């Protein structure tokens, strides 16, 4: 077990180092002089030279890289070229918005996905299975930004029952927060719900034909008890993994969802940084996203190996 954990930790660390190198070189490859971008209006050569020295831009690339990583480890990601605010702080303000949105979306996705998946598996060859399957297929085929636009069109423009944009923190006003986040969360969670539904359905079908379910039935347990207590419990292992693996989908989805519903979150920060060519900010958001992503993957893998011992015994799942 510990050997497996150690190996995954080392693998993740290697990936993380590769990511920082890619991010660093990527931003250095950007056209234009970062010092000039930082200097903004005042573009006399002396100021630019001063800025270049201040940020260490006159040093060789490897030296700059080590400096950057050294500071990043201490939580200093530099200063935004546009707002002059600390990148770390700006990200700190945006992150809670995205986290609240993502949490809400996951809840929505799990409720819909698991519910529909169970129904589709238990009521095979009925109208309910057909409906659940069709909705899942639609969920996979509808781009969530269009789903978002249509939702705004229907529920905010044609029948104004929900706000079309804006963010209210759940800690300030839970009711308003719910109203503001309901549409974005459903939009963001819809794709995930479809994936969860399909996985739940196939895991349930497998579980329902397993020997232990037959044994449970033979012992005289009722249908609901068998479905929920035995089959679903074992299917949830798969679902947990899927949710973990799909968190990246959620990060990408959040960018689009925040753009449509004008939520001041991490995704909007990313897009704004690109369009204003705010290089320190781009570097920061990409680094944070990648780190979070690697961390989540590591966690999912470790969790999975705890749940299913075959993985660490067999080494790698192939």
């Amino acid at each position, binding site marked *: 077990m510990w050997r497996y954990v150690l190996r995954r930790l080392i693998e993740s660390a290697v*990936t993380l180092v590769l990511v920082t190198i890619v991010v660093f070189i*990527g931003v250095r490859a950007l056209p234009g002089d970062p010092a000039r971008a930082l200097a903004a209006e005042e573009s006399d050569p002396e100021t630019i030279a001063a800025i270049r020295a201040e940020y260490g831009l006159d040093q060789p690339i490897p030296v700059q890289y080590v400096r950057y990583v050294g500071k990043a480890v201490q939580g200093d990601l530099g200063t935004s070229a546009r707002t002059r605010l600390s990148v770390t702080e700006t990200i700190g303000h945006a992150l809670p918005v995205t986290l609240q949105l993502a949490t809400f979306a996951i809840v929505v996705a799990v409720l819909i996905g698991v519910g529909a998946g169970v129904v589709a598996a238990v009521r095979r060859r009925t109208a309910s299975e057909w409906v659940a399957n069709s909705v899942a297929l639609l969920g996979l085929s509808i781009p969530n*930004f269009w789903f978002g636009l249509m939702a705004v069109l229907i529920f905010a*423009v044609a029948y104004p029952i929900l706000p079309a944009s804006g963010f209210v923190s759940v800690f300030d006003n839970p009711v308003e927060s719910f109203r503001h986040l309901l549409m974005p969360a459903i939009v963001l969670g819809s794709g995930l719900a479809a994936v969860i539904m399909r996985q739940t359905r196939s895991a349930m079908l497998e579980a329902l034909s397993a020997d232990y379910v037959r044994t449970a039935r033979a012992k005289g347990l009722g249908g609901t008890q068998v479905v929920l207590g035995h089959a679903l419990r074992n299917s949830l292992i798969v679902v947990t993994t899927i949710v973990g693996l799909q968190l*990246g989908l959620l990060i990408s989805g959040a*960018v689009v969802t925040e753009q449509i519903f004008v939520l001041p979150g991490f995704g909007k920060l990313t897009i704004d940084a*690109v369009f204003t060519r705010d290089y320190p900010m781009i570097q920061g958001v990409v680094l944070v996203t990648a780190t979070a992503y690697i961390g989540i993957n590591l966690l999912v893998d470790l969790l999975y190996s705890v749940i299913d011992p075959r993985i660490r015994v067999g080494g790698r799942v192939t």
Partner: protein
Amino acid sequence: MTLELVPVKETGPAAPAPPGSRRRALRRVLRNPLAALGLVIVVVALLAAALANLVTPFPYDRTDFSAALQPPSPAHWFGTDELGRDQFSRVIFGLRASVEVGVMSVALSLVVGVPLGLLAGFYGWLDPVVSRLTDTLLAFPFLVLAVGLAAIVGPSLTIATIAIAAAQIPAVVRVTRSETLHLREMDYVAAAIADGASDAVLLGRHILPNAVNALIVQATVAVPAAIIGESVLSFLGLGVRPPTPSLGIMLASAQPLFRDGPWLVVFPGVAIVLLTLAMNLVGDGLRDALDPREVRR
């Protein structure tokens, strides 16, 4: 929305396909009514996109301010936008951009991913190297990757294609790698080795052809995902640049015109959904037809 691609299956049956099985598979797909319907829609859409110049009633960039923001009518089936451009013509040309990016990016991901997967599955010592590389790629959520590339090189159709391909490479590598791992252990491969076959012959003649089914299934999921990816990138302003119509761009420019022209939001979206839905139906049908385990069920 399926941007992040998970491999459709990592553990395949990987039994060598008997000759002629693919044609039988196609016939089985056509017997499945939903898949057949999907195939018809896909073919019609592809034809319309390919012959866009012939089937559209107006040039996609012709403005007509006397007919600006008109709802759908016999003259303009999908209405007109704020510049009086015919939306039907623009949707057809937008389809062309979407299909181009979708097919090109998947082709690119196969060109890069298949050799990597073959090598990683065949030569054990290469496996950790390739796996780290794909992990690094996977560490960037698709959009962040695209955003980064667009920031470096500037947004364009080519960049969108490369970004989408890059996002799909890890899934292709994984599928190819796991198929190779399975096939390598097959008796007929051992027989070929005993017969003195070189590594190139083993990979090219014995392993790759039998991994094709899994790759076809992967591609049927990847193309619609790439098409959605393109529309998302264009919607965010990171893909096709105006005035070239793309379904994503049409939706982006429709967003401020919600109240005055709701049809501007509806039609391009319906086009994307119909196309990807049809492709997913064909893909599901193909998967059932190509997977021997499904058939026995």
